[in-house]
């Protein structure tokens, strides 16, 4: 099939399904190689970038999904009800950031970092579909391991967890400099 035909089929499937569809599933349904599918997706992406398109395509791990362009938000809120979003309290956000960066992680490890029992927070995040069980750790008690879901990627606008803002020593050094600056400030007064 031509690129145009392939792109049309991918568009139709994504439009109908609403949810994300795996590239492999597209390949199977269309009886094509995954690399061709990726080409069709690239074609669509280009088409959607034009000014006359109100929709876009997001890539998640190994799946793709259609969405509206961010610029359309102001018009959408006027006519449609905003989709219900999980309201994340500070303690949920804290827990989520630890799970996102340290996955796969057990409840106990989360608790160690936060210094406070986090079972409730983890359970809530699982309920919200942002966190999921990944299996069990091969250790005494076989504790459950948790990680983020595709819904997490979608909600935070990244394609994979590798795309999360880097966390590391740089940040820590910054804190150090900040703290030192504060101390000097205090001494100056």
């Amino acid at each position, binding site marked *: 099939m031509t690129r145009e035909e392939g792109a049309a089929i991918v568009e139709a499937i994504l439009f109908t399904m609403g949810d994300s569809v795996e590239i492999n599933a597209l390949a199977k349904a269309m009886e094509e190689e995954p690399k061709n599918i990726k080409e069709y997706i690239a074609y669509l992406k280009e088409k959607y970038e034009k000014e006359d398109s109100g929709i876009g395509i997001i890539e998640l791990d190994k799946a793709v999904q259609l969405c509206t362009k961010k610029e359309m938000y102001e018009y959408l809120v006027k006519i449609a009800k905003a989709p219900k979003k999980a309201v994340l309290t500070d303690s949920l956000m804290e827990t989520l950031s630890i799970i996102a960066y340290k996955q796969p992680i057990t409840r106990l490890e989360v608790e160690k970092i936060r*210094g406070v029992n986090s079972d409730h927070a983890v359970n809530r995040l699982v309920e919200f579909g942002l966190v999921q069980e990944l299996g069990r750790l091969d250790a005494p008690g076989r504790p459950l391991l948790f990680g983020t879901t595709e819904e997490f990627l979608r909600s935070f606008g990244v394609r994979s967890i590798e795309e999360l803002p880097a966390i590391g020593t740089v940040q820590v050094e910054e804190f150090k400099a900040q*703290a030192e600056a504060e101390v000097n400030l205090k001494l100056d007064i």
Partner: protein
Amino acid sequence: MSLEVKLQVFEGPLDLLMHLIDKNQIDIYDIPIVTITEQYMAYINAMQKEDMDVTSEFLVMAATLIDIKCKMLLPKEVNEDGEEEDPRAELVEKLLEYKMYKYMAYELKDMQMDADMQWFRAKDLPQEVKDYEMPIDFSDLIGDTTLTKLNSIFQELLKRQEDKVDPIRSKFGNIEKEEIDMDAKTLYIKAYIREHDRFSFRQLLEKQHSKTEIIVTFLVMLEEMKLGEIEIEQETTFGDIIITSRKAS
């Protein structure tokens, strides 16, 4: 330093510590442990007074702080490389790690707000597609799962449950919190002293039902002695204590 009248709620002990460090504008690598411990304890006391939920985690941190405070007074321990170890090092590391994730949580929140502007679409299958039924391939689904495997998984689950039940403590029966009204107990013992001019401490203790009651009784005795209401005599070490009411003599 006085605490705010309205107590802030903190996620946990690390959150509270970070707040104190920020408020005092302290270098996290050089925490004045005495000051911070005092402020931390003051906060916990205030929390207890306000009847807020002081979880065990807060108390554990209090113990840790006091432990570090003590270690700071002792000569510094030296590690293998001959370097002096800072008793605060472990706490600092924990605080930094916590602060880092807290910071990332804010970053994530921003990202979430941005991503919220993209909207999706609900699945909407045309009726003709909806009506079509495709069979599930069960042999594919089950794969190499056998009943024996299913059985062993269940056994393992049961064992895990069993492990959760502490074989010793589960036999203790219920532990109930005793409600002792301190004031009532004090009044009762004072009345006892008034009624009995001279009595045995041991006998009085025998009327008490629990450890807490005994402790309260003991405390009331000390208080009465301090006020000069009673006098005590003890003939031999560990012998019975005879209490005489001052009014009687």
